[in-house]
């Protein structure tokens, strides 16, 4: 009851924190798509390069986000941005890379070789084949990777409250330091709802962009 009152009295603040959160996640995932998708496509050309890139990506994923923020502080301090929005975006972007690269790589690799052979045999150049056949068929799996990246990033960005990036994590960090259960629950609840909302809207997008003639993944009746 107390928590509910707190939420109702702080709706504008919650909205503002949510916007901060979304801006960090949105920019980070946006950049990660622009870099990760081309990289994921590029590494389909060489098994060895692909193995290396995916291995490095997996190592990055094992770094705790709080440690990554720590590493970024001295580096970004040189341009006066040691804490705040920029390191939060950079860290989130780093964590978004692996799911996007890996899903893009797997999706393109799994396009039926017969389709690739047919496309090439009919006179498509490599870029035409990519744009008209491979990417449209791979798109649902690529978007599934983006969904994973978004959910991971919502979590990473919550931690970024500790380096002064704002966002919904602020409620949690304050709730802990002030032993205020109301703020703690508000932050956790808002984060959960945000994650679910983002995941579902991307799932909707994923289904919409699934080629109509492709095998269904339980997406349409």
């Amino acid at each position, binding site marked *: 009851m107390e928590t509910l009152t707190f939420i109702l009295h702080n709706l504008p603040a919650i909205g503002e924190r949510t916007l901060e959160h979304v801006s960090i996640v949105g920019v980070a995932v946006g950049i990660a798509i622009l870099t990760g998708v081309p990289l994921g496509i590029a590494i389909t050309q060489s098994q060895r390069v692909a193995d290396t890139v995916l291995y490095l990506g997996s190592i990055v994923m094992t770094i705790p986000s709080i440690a990554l923020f720590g590493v970024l502080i001295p580096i970004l301090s040189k341009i006066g941005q040691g804490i705040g929005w920029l390191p939060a975006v950079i860290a989130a972007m780093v964590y978004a890379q692996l799911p996007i690269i890996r899903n893009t790589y797997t999706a393109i690799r799994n396009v039926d070789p017969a389709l690739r052979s047919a*496309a090439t*045999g*009919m*006179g498509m*150049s490599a870029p035409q084949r990519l744009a008209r056949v491979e990417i449209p068929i791979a798109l649902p799996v690529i978007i599934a990777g983006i969904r994973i990246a978004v959910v991971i990033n919502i979590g990473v960005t919550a931690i970024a409250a500790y380096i002064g990036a704002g966002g919904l994590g602020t409620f949690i960090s304050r709730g802990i330091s002030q032993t205020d259960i109301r703020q703690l629950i508000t932050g956790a609840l808002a984060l959960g709802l945000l994650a679910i909302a983002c995941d579902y809207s991307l799932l909707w997008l994923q289904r919409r962009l699934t080629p*109509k*003639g492709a095998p269904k993944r339980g997406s349409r009746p």
Partner: protein
Amino acid sequence: MIRLDALTKVYPTANGAVAAVDRVSLEVADGETCVLLGPSGCGKTTTLRMINRLVVPTSGKITIGGRDTDAVDPVELRRTIGYVIQQIGLFPNMTVAENIGVVPRLLGWTAERRRRRAEELLAMLALDPAQFLDRYPNELSGGQAQRIGVARALAADPPVLLMDEPFGALDPVNREVIQDQFLRMQRTLRKTVLFVSHDIDEAVKMADRIAIFRAGRLVQFAAPDTMLAHPADDFVASFVGTDRTLKRLRLIRVREIMLPGVACDARAGGGPTVTPDDDLRRVATLFLEHDLDTLPCVDPDGNVVGRVTRADVAARLATGAA
């Protein structure tokens, strides 16, 4: 005309270089269907894929209509060659109309012209355009999908068609139907067709000439009747089968051995008859079924135009190739 000249493809393997295709030379005249026949791994598909440069030859030359394919940009070359594969390879993200329009679109046709062409091809393949144009490949049966595959290869009206076991995945009944349909179309279209198959019956049915392969080498290149009558060696003889004489019967038409004239006998009234376009399989069947030595030939109106005898059938089989 397609000409292969000492075409060779060598693959390096752990046990040294292996020639998948070994100095194959052959010529296919314009409008002819040549079936590349042989057991799996004999180099027939590799040979086909060298023609549209999906496989780059190690040595040798391919000319199409006098033009060395080496001198042409592979992407441009492929747009002038229709290509059908066994797995069909329809793009699941495109409708039937879009699939058929792939090469026309690459060639810069307008959307309206592509659509018209797709309608025309579907009608030619006895598929109702209104019903099929906007379907997706997963809404088609195997036989329908394979027809669309053929339509797609014909879309830009290429003079040359490469078909890699195009009907191999179909059930026997469907395969017969689509083979007949293709033969009918080919009679008017007169494409130069190279057709890979491992099925001797299909080869005999479809081919003007059969090129039979073994371990990368061309063993015999001949018209089906010649190949069945005179297999070049034991391998060809065993591949075409011990019933090769029976297979030949379907290649020979009654008109080829018919004795013209109406003065045979009056049995046309009741007994079995054949038409000049029937093949000798039917004649032989009737001979055996009714224990006959001679059959009257009738025209479509039922008038007796000649007769065919057991002795003439035997004589024709004995002469070998026409």
